[in-house]
């Protein structure tokens, strides 16, 4: 007479199971993104010559490796129900610090360490302010955004080129793949980050606490979970990812400039949302965010293949696609419990 659910123990045939398979509703948004991505790619392949080639797919990763890392960090924050508006500015700051320290003769390893320490420190600071002073994440990270951008200007108003040998080589390096294809070290780094993030989110207490805080922070607290550590930690992680993304971006642009990455935080947020993570927290997967980045990248590829679109049509196109995606996601999640 219990109102609990009954676990069915009938044993259907293998084919029966395949036929009636319905993925758990929590995977639906990511699957929708996946479908959208393949759909867009198919349309592109039909419309444009040479669109549907493997190298084009790989180039999506190559050109957006930094955004993937950024989106991973943002996913952690959004899963707890927060948001991080500072990431674009921290990317810019990272490129500035990289260029500046390298120009002063620092060894590359030290430059990298400096960037990661500063970016993680900034993230940690924001997390502490958000949790212990109870300031809304939007405002605290907005202040962080101004702070980071301000520090950029403090370092230098003009752009600083990166001439370091190691960076140069890394930037141009290509990792050959079978079939005449190639990828870059940046992509490998990005994918490793994604793998680590997925492991942390699904197989560690910290990661599960991230989901718990997003689902119900008060419950997580009463359950005795380490909420404070988690809430502060996700911002530190986002800071670290921003720093790393900044390094990858520096590899890409080979310069440090205060006007880099303006508005990149919105790209990261869009990617995470497209990837199926709910802004209210508690639901989402890093794989989804990666797919979100790929969707955004595909839009850019569409535009560059088309060649005829003026810059304002680009903006409109991105807006329309974002809208289409968000409405689709809404229709799908409406059916969820």
């Amino acid at each position: 007479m219990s109102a609990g659910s009954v676990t069915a123990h009938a044993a259907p045939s293998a084919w029966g199971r395949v036929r009636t398979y319905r993925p758990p509703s929590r995977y639906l948004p990511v699957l929708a993104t996946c479908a959208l991505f393949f759909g867009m790619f198919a349309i592109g392949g039909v419309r444009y010559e040479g669109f549907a080639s493997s190298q084009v797919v790989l180039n999506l990763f190559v050109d957006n490796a930094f955004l993937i890392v950024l989106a991973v960090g943002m996913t952690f924050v959004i899963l707890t129900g927060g948001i991080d508006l500072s990431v674009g500015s921290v990317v810019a700051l990272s490129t500035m610090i990289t260029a500046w320290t390298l120009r002063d003769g620092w060894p590359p390893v030290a430059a990298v360490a400096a960037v990661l320490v500063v970016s993680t420190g900034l993230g940690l600071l924001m997390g502490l302010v958000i949790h212990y002073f109870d300031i809304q994440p939007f405002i605290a990270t907005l202040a962080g955004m101004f702070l980071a951008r301000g520090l950029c200007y403090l370092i230098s108003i003009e752009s600083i080129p990166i001439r370091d040998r190691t960076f140069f080589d890394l930037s141009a390096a290509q990792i050959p793949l079978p079939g005449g294809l190639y990828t870059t070290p940046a992509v490998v780094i990005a994918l490793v980050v994604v793998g680590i993030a997925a492991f942390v989110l699904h197989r560690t207490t910290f990661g599960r606490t991230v989901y718990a805080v997003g689902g119900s922070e008060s419950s997580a607290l009463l359950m005795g979970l380490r909420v404070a550590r988690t809430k502060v930690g996700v911002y530190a992680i986002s800071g670290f990812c921003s720093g790393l993304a900044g390094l990858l971006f520096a590899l890409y642009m080979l310069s440090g400039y205060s006007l880099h990455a303006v508005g990149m935080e919105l790209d990261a947020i869009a990617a995470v949302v497209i990837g199926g993570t709910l802004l209210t927290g508690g639901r989402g997967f890093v794989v989804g965010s990666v797919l979100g980045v790929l969707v955004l990248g595909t839009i850019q590829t569409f535009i560059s293949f088309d060649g005829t679109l003026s810059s304002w049509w680009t903006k409109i196109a991105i807006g329309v696609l974002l809208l289409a995606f968000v409405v689709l996601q809404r229709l799908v999640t409406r059916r969820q419990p």
Partner: protein
Amino acid sequence: MSRVTGHPLFWPLLALALLLVVNVVATPSFLDVRVQDGHLYGNLVDIARNGAPVLLVALGMTLVIATRGIDLSVGAVAAIAGAVACVWIAGGAGEGSAGKALTGCAIALVVCLVLGLWNGFLVSVLGIQPIIATLVLMTAGRGLAMLVTDGQITTVNNATFSRIGGGFVLTLPVAILIALAVFGLTALLTRRTALGMLVESVGINPEASRLAGVRARTIIWTAYVFSAVCAGLAGLMIASNTNAADANNAGLWIELDAILAVVIGGTSLAGGRFSLGGTLVGALFLTTLAATIPNIGIPSETNYLFKAVVVIVVCLLQSPQARASLAVRRRTRPAPVEAGAAA
């Protein structure tokens, strides 16, 4: 004493006062105003005039935030408004006529109304989260503005139009008058009618409000329309100031300033109770800050840094105070359970 310090406007006003003091220390003649050719001049006047667009946008933003939403598209809407008005005025005959100026502005505002309806539709009918719903227009909007101006910066030559941003009436700048008029109208509308209370109710608990018969959907929709129209007015002001419509740069990042003004003024981003007076103080604070930086000799590169520090300090000052002003003090650190409630 605690009645004074407990008042929600106390901290923002104090911050503003301190800022003015700093300015006066740096430039003793800071507060001087003078009348010249029947016009009022002075630093304070400039601050108020420069702050008018931000105040307008922030007023609309206050209502949207009170319904638990946010409107990131206001900058783009402002750009669109300026673009539509300028293209209308500059196109065809009679560029300088007052009639053209008025119809141009009217058309621009109607367009903004439609954009507000669009945002409101996404949020209140489709149930899309406000930050994403308005992000769509924020992204596409500038493209739309550029479409209207065909990628050019459209200049206009119209005395009536220029008066919006640069004109004077009875010694006061028109911009300030418009901003104050909208402020007064909004205050009247929200506090003399039940609109304010209903907005707060919807923001605090939308489901309970719905069950009590509040037309939550209509209220939320109205808030976004209002926000868009305010942004449109601000856009007209900005375009009038430069006598041109720059689709790319008009109102750039004004949404951030508006949100900051609202938050500094004491309204919580989580929705619910809001304070128009607080938003006014917040907007004045931000524009005063922008004027302070060159005034006390800080290089403009450190603009951002300064802004960041000040925002952090003001918000920190506010946060325990905001809790205290609700007359229920939270107990230990992060215990999110309500204090003093039923045992």
